[in-house]
């Protein structure tokens, strides 16, 4: 986005029973739904650091340094954010 914030579009998987119900109602052929998630400035900064290689601890350290946060505080914030992305199926966690 112009503001530098990230807008993420991602496909939403429908629960099997809902898909079946949609099929019965004649809506089975419609394209998969997409949801969007607008990240704020902090979320966008962390999102930009997610490359599948950099460990979480290093991302949190860089985040703490960029925003002059306490190490522990940054770790908690980044972990919560990553967990939320994982819950929405936007990223996979190892």
């Amino acid at each position: 986005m112009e503001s530098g914030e990230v807008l993420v579009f991602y496909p939403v998987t429908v629960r099997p029973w809902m898909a079946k119900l949609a099929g019965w109602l004649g809506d089975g052929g419609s394209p998969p739904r997409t949801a969007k998630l607008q990240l704020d400035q902090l979320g966008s900064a962390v999102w930009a650091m997610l490359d599948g290689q950099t460990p979480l601890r290093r991302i949190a350290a860089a985040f703490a340094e960029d925003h002059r946060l306490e190490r522990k505080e940054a770790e908690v914030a980044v972990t919560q954010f990553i967990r939320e992305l994982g819950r929405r199926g936007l990223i996979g966690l190892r």
Partner: protein
Amino acid sequence: MRPTDWKTIAWNGVRFAVPGDWEPGRIGRRHLLFESEPGPVMEIKWGAVKGRFSRRRQLRELSRRIGRRRSAFQERPLPGEWRTSLAGFEAAGFQWDAANERAVGVLLYCAACRTVSLIQFFERPETASIEHTAARVLASFRDHRTDGRMAWALYDIVAFLPAHFTLERHRFEAGRFVLEFKERRCRLTLYRWAPAGVLLHKQSLAVFAETVAGGAGLEFRPMTIAGHPGLEGRDPAPTGCVACLKTRLGIVLVRRLRLWHVAGRNRILGVRLEGRRPIDDPEMCALSDAYGMDHEKTSATFADPG
């Protein structure tokens, strides 16, 4: 902060110094657990003793509690370095060993303030002995002051409040710290928000104060607080005899809020005082002066003049 730097921790009556890389992992009203990179390193619990202090009974209780975790508890004499540091206390050393963890600790009793403190340091097989570091922590340990104030220092905030403000609630969330104190007729709240650059990116400090800091309905005026740009909000002056009388009788709640932007540290600090009595300027000034960032309060500030 380099890991070799030490920092002062002060919380609900106790204060001590810990290595810079020890971070509070769990914070209770009378309990702190510190962690470093490999895991927990230190735990402290304290409380006032009711009645007569019995070292034997306290150690027996501790041994029972630790025994439940299948750890072998035993009393041990204090190492020489510790004994020198703890000269002002009645102290009893102990240790316990579990499968992959070991702890050394001390039970302290201060006859002056009748506080008992349990301090233990955790060791892992892969880490070096903690005894020397522990001696330095214990040497800095104090459990009372004589100046009628109480120090609060955790993470990057420091406050020296009159001791009659008792801690009621605390929250240390990422980006938002809140400490709530109460006194007989008023309530004091200390805030710390971060990162200020992001929080004030799309709004002014006044808008932030109204929408986030609970200052809705207050009249704000800009002011400099501790050398930083800030503002103060207060309830509109009562108009009419009835409103004035209500304020004087303590029927209506009086609110004062001060917020300031510590740009150098990317933080916003706030002090909110509300009560059923008039709040005057010197009181508000004293409270906002007593609160700040860790770099603004030197170790000399922690010293007890008594």
